[in-house]
């Protein structure tokens, strides 16, 4: 029997386009300090640190965990960095979970960050493409997400239209008004999204996430300690992850198999059979508006092609039947290496009842999702209020 583990504290910075007052370790320490405070812990109480960040090429520092670790009290302690691209923050949390459930550590601090103002995000992302075959025509993340959205729209037209992507953007930016950590906190309309400048067809500027400076942190504790630390820990009920090759000719970006499989793994562990009914809220990694539709389908919250109906009917709104991204999602802030962890933090906050103005009432089970690489890495985590 694997011993239980739970999140007992979370912390985030206020995500902004440029932090000039701090360097990377200082920014990470800010989020970590908040997580420790919520858990009622001091730096010395931490047994190990796991760090997550996306390509180091963003900030130009190799092995940044060696720089960050001592800043979060880890000098003389175990530090490990997990690096899986967009999923890095969530993969780091999953590594933290295994630190605890393996029995090797009782209390683990997990941190993730990105300081995208230190470089040019799309140059960094273009460096992910194969140097010999792909890079000459690499065009960052929007190029790939544009292909994904095109594949999705082509499959489900005419019922699904570009306006459905715009509706996701409008919904999430409205939710962000209630999230003090969100970067973009201004309401927009479907008309404004549709009229915004093209980025990579069919994606328009307001279909896309911003680039952000920000950090996130959480504390994971083994069961008995977790119960003593906080009134309502967010228990790890199910953890799933799956990778796939980007060079499979029939790769289905409109219904990614890695996402389907990661969800199956997490649901099986969490005893979830009908996710739409049994889960209460989801935080998904929608760096681009159409992705929220695709993820709700691949996560089994609705059938393929029905994601558009969910957003159009208001079911995924903050006051809807199944709120998706009550935090405002990645469309409202994207410190890339931290974004996947922020999804987990926001889902855990919903379970812990600490989400403040964007709290969904009565959440007992919450889902966090992320994707990374060339839409090839997926993680799914289910948190529950009891285990």
């Amino acid at each position, binding site marked *: 029997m694997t011993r239980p583990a739970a999140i007992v504290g979370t912390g985030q910075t206020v995500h902004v386009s440029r932090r000039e007052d701090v360097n990377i370790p200082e920014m990470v320490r800010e989020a970590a300090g908040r997580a420790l405070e919520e858990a009622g812990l001091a730096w010395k109480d931490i047994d190990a640190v796991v760090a997550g960040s996306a390509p180091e090429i963003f900030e130009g520092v190799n092995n940044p*965990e*060696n720089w960050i670790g001592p800043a979060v009290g880890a000098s003389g302690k175990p530090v490990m960095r997990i690096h899986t691209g967009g999923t890095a923050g969530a993969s780091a949390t999953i590594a933290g979970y295994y630190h605890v459930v393996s029995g090797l550590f009782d209390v683990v601090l997990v941190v993730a960050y990105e300081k995208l103002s230190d470089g040019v995000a799309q140059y960094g992302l273009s460096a992910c*493409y194969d140097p010999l075959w792909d890079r000459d025509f690499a065009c960052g993340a929007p190029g790939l997400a544009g292909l994904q959205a095109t594949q999705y729209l082509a499959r489900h037209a005419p019922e699904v239209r570009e306006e459905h992507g715009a509706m996701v953007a409008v919904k999430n930016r409205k939710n962000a008004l209630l999230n003090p950590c969100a970067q973009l906190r201004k309401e927009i309309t479907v008309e404004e999204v549709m009229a915004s400048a093209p980025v990579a067809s069919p994606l328009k500027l307001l279909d896309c996430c911003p680039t952000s400076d920000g950090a996130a942190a959480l504390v994971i504790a083994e069961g008995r300690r977790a119960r003593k630390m906080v009134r309502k820990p967010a228990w790890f009920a199910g953890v799933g992850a799956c990778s796939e090759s980007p060079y499979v000719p029939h790769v289905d970006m409109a219904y990614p198999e890695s996402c389907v499989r990661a969800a199956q793994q997490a649901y099986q562990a969490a005893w979830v059979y009908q996710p739409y009914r049994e889960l209460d809220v989801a935080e998904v990694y929608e760096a681009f508006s159409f992705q929220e539709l695709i993820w709700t389908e691949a996560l089994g919250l609705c059938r393929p092609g029905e994601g558009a109906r969910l957003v159009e009917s208001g079911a995924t709104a903050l006051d809807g039947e199944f709120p998706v991204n009550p935090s405002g999602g990645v469309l409202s802030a994207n410190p890339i290496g931290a974004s996947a962890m922020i999804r987990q933090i926001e889902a855990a906050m919903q379970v812990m009842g600490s989400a403040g103005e964007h709290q969904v009432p009565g959440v007992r089970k919450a889902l966090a999702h992320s994707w990374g690489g060339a839409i090839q890495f997926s993680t799914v985590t289910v948190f529950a209020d009891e285990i």
Partner: protein
Amino acid sequence: MEEVAAIGWAQTVHERRMERETPMSMAYRVVNEALSSCGLTIQDIEVLIDAGSDFLDGRGISTCITVDAMGGHFKEESKVAGDGLLAAAYAYMRVASGLSSTALVVAYGKSSESDASLQTATMCEPFFTRPLGFDGAAAAALQARSYMRRYGVGPETTAGVAAKNLAAGAANPNAQVRGEASVEEVMTSPVLASPIRELEAAPVTDGACAVVLARGDVARSVGVRPAWISGVGHCSDAYSIGTRERHRAVAAAGASRSALRMAGISRPHDQLDFLEVSEFYSYQELMLYEATGLCGEGEGADLFSSGDTSPGGRPAVNVSGGALCANPLVATGLVRLAEAAARVTDRAEYEPGAKGDRALVHGGGGLAMQTATCMVVER
């Protein structure tokens, strides 16, 4: 906590420059060989944990492209940044948790495609340190000076360590540097970063390594002798060289303390048969004797002079030749595990030089040994 064993392993023949290999081809080869060494197929693997360096590979999230070559298609996979032995520590956690029965660890490095000095310079703090031209060799030189001056260690001793390992590596068919050198030759080789001479530094290497870990019940059923992992630990030191105790390998001490305690070892010199450590520079091996508790602080040179750590002695250190004979960065620590596992199980592919039932392996990372991972492997 479940029992965990290494049941299969493979490494490339390490070379200065593999013109005809890509990271994918190297990884593919060692994965297949590691699997066949224990009679498994990729379908038997539940989790893949890999180690790689984006800076070394010259691309962001380099696992995007290596993941399928490593067998990660439709598998649970994660990437640890840094040394391969740290990836093995994470894979150990996955299996020890009871949630996976097998895990594959893969590490590769193709250092020939970049410049070692620039590569290590990117690890430096970017605003105040990097503009000085600081790099891995410079950091090591400061550490070597602090250590050698404090304990009166002369250059003939560090050169002796290099000569010992180069002689040992001559018998290792996977080693890259396979030429013996006398103490005099080491001492008269060009200065890399004073007091470190070129023959006292690990070479630039292309290479890869893969290790299969399995839960106890699986390890007992596959039909090959498993190398049990009875202790594991990892640790990191302060970042800034200026604030460190430079005469002490703090991270290695922390990592080995955890691993040895877990394995129930209180007298390492008496209870370990041999060690495989990642000495990127010859002086580091002396510091690692002290950090792993083979001798007291400042006694590394005396222990070396006693001959205990030479091939034929006990506990012999780096009978494979160590990192000085092949340093496929990122994979270097995992190679130590593969070497030790082969020896404790009598599955070495060549006359192993040192055998025994119990070994400590060490992997390092960061500037001047800032990070370390240790494992105890037993027959």
